[in-house]
């Protein structure tokens, strides 16, 4: 399988400026060195608590935010990606490196170059109640991407929006309505239709169902599955609900304070989590089975501030397996055979 999207050591830091001279005192390390590769037609789930940087990662990949360092590739051959990484180590100041990067690395793009790629990458926001313009009719909302990218003339644009409305299970009679006339599930369908107008390859979903009912969530998820098959789409699905990710995703990456702590097959992670944090997430996830007896492991405390992450392993203050090693040196993501990767010194069996 070919890789569609890849990030290499991606970092997005937000500076904290203090005082009269706007002195740079610290950084909020929202995304702190993430390497993630997403294959063609893969549905990757990104799971973590609020404040762990999931949304920032999604937005950085789409270049809605400028990364501080690192590389983002969209549909670039592996040789070129490797070449850039190689040059970065050997001669980071050379012209060849800079040329290659400005040609292929999304992290350096801007202006028209970026705009051309925007139609291939789309985003669906969390809250469908705020992501749609309340003063725009649905038809205008859907026509906007077409006019921004100058994709087609008016007549074929009309046809196109009727087509995408049909794809998400809405009818042309909904087009002249305003967002407030729709229910939450229908609004999320409209938001999905809006991303499909430009026929993208890659869509990032930022908790698209957390504002919805469970029954409506199931409808939206089955719709996404159908669209993925029909339109050959690739998804990055951001969620805090592990059971949703387990049900729909092909791969899961568990994120904690700007780092990926575990990656792998959803079923494996759910059945045998290796990282203590993944285990805590699995145990916290409610399951619709009252007879299930589980060893309750309620995670103490809350996520520390990413402006001042703990030294060593970022999870160690909340981890019951932490040793001195964990407090001193940060573990890296180690491959464990197959797709599975874990960043922990004392992984669970």
């Amino acid at each position, binding site marked *: 399988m070919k890789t569609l999207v890849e990030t290499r050591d991606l970092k997005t830091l937000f500076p904290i400026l203090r005082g009269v001279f706007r002195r740079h005192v610290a950084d909020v390390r929202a995304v702190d060195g993430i390497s993630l590769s997403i294959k063609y037609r893969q549905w990757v789930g990104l799971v973590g608590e609020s404040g762990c940087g999931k949304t920032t990662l999604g937005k950085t990949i789409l270049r809605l935010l400028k990364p501080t360092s690192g590389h983002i590739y969209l549909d670039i051959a592996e040789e070129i990606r490797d070449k850039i990484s190689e040059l970065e180590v050997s001669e980071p100041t050379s012209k060849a490196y800079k040329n290659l990067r400005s040609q292929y690395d999304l992290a350096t793009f801007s202006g028209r170059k970026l705009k051309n790629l925007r139609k291939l990458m789309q985003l669906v926001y969390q809250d469908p109640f705020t992501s749609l313009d309340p003063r725009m009719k649905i038809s205008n909302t859907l026509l906007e991407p077409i006019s921004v990218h100058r994709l087609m003339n008016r007549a074929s644009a009309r046809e196109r929006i009727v087509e995408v409305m049909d794809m998400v299970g809405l009818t042309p009679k909904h087009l002249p309505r305003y967002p407030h006339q729709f229910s939450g599930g229908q609004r999320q369908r409209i938001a999905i239709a809006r991303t499909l107008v430009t026929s993208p390859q890659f869509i990032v979903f930022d908790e698209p169902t957390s504002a919805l*009912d*469970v*029954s409506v969530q199931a409808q939206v*998820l089955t719709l996404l599955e159908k669209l993925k098959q029909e339109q050959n789409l690739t998804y990055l699905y951001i969620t805090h609900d592990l*059971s949703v990710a387990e049900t729909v995703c092909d791969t899961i990456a568990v994120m904690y304070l700007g780092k990926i702590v575990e990656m792998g097959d959803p079923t494996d992670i759910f059945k045998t989590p290796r990282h203590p944090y993944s285990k805590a997430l699995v145990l*916290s996830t*409610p399951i619709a089975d009252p007879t299930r007896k589980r060893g309750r492991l309620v995670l103490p405390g809350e996520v520390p501030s990413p402006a001042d992450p703990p030294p060593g392993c970022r999870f160690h203050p909340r981890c019951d397996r932490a040793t001195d090693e964990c407090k001193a040196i940060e573990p890296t993501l180690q491959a464990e055979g197959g797709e599975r990767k874990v960043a922990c010194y004392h992984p669970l069996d």
Partner: protein
Amino acid sequence: MNKLVEIKGVSINFYTYEGVVRAISNLDLDIYQGETLGLVGETGCGKTVAALSILRLIMPPGRIESGQIIFYSNGDKPTDLLAIAESKIRTIRGSQISMVFQEPGAALNPVYTIGDQITEVILLHRKQELASKALITLDKLLVERDSLSTRLFRPARIIQRRLYQRMSDNPGTRLLGFVERTPIIRRFLWRLEKEAEQIAISLLKEVEIADPYRVIKQHPHQLSGGMKQRAVIAMSLACRTRLLIADEPTTALDVTIQAQILELLKRLKDEIQTSILYITHDLAVAAEICDRVAVMYSGSICEIADVVEIYKNPLHPYTRALLAAVPKPGKKLSAIKGFVPDPLDLPTGCCFHPRCKNARDICKVKEPIPVEITPGHFVTCYLYDGEKLENSG
């Protein structure tokens, strides 16, 4: 088990410009003492309206059309919450029945500190207890008489003591109402506030807030979502309520924080022996916390049973569809077809029939009535009428 609240034939309509919304029609529901009853349903099915009706908080254009809500309070005669005077229900709200809302950020007042907001409940409902506590501290102060300051404050303290004595003897005294409303004199009550603050701190400790002395002086925006929800729970349990209505208390929170809050509610329920009416749209959450589950659809209960029973043996087609929509590891997701009916224009007969796979002709005409299949397992569906039971049994 004894009944705590008995909802009998309650109907609530909302009179809007577009027409009459039948939010709840003929609802029957019993809440037993010391149980956690889950009320499960999709958005707009009337879960919250049902909960608000228990506290009689339905605001116009809503109106409670008919029915009774009988509350079996401790020792007293059972009272019909829908029939008693407004002043009477105000003494019940917050002290006997309290509520935790979905959005902790919206439930707290942003301009008051957490301490102010918790002490408000205590000052309102536990005055007598506060007064007697303050009396004890005052008596201690009046005994020692050596220093200058104690001699200086002595007259003021004696007046204070008299006031508190009156309060602890008769909390409904009119003098108290006068003192509370008059500026300057009102300050004589400061000892009560002090005592209330002590209680607030112990409440915050009870809901496992790490640093209650700091939190009590903080404003809601300084706390995280989970902390805010804990503070709201502390507030609602301030008077050792008999019934706690939790309206989707964890929907706005992360799964890890949700697990913490659910654990907390379970523990507190046993400790202070309250009943919980837990409203949620997520059957997975209901499975975690509830003893019994009632599934609601378009303003009426379609199935009610013990938690193990309802997940093992769901009978109503809607319950089955809802269970299939919950993501569960190693299971394929299947969505319910169609949408929740428009409350302005409810379908005739059984409200679920347009989305039901097993709908028959009778479903479209006549509303089914609840049938008890096994003890405690009621289902409102024609699939399980008497005739069918005879055939299968």
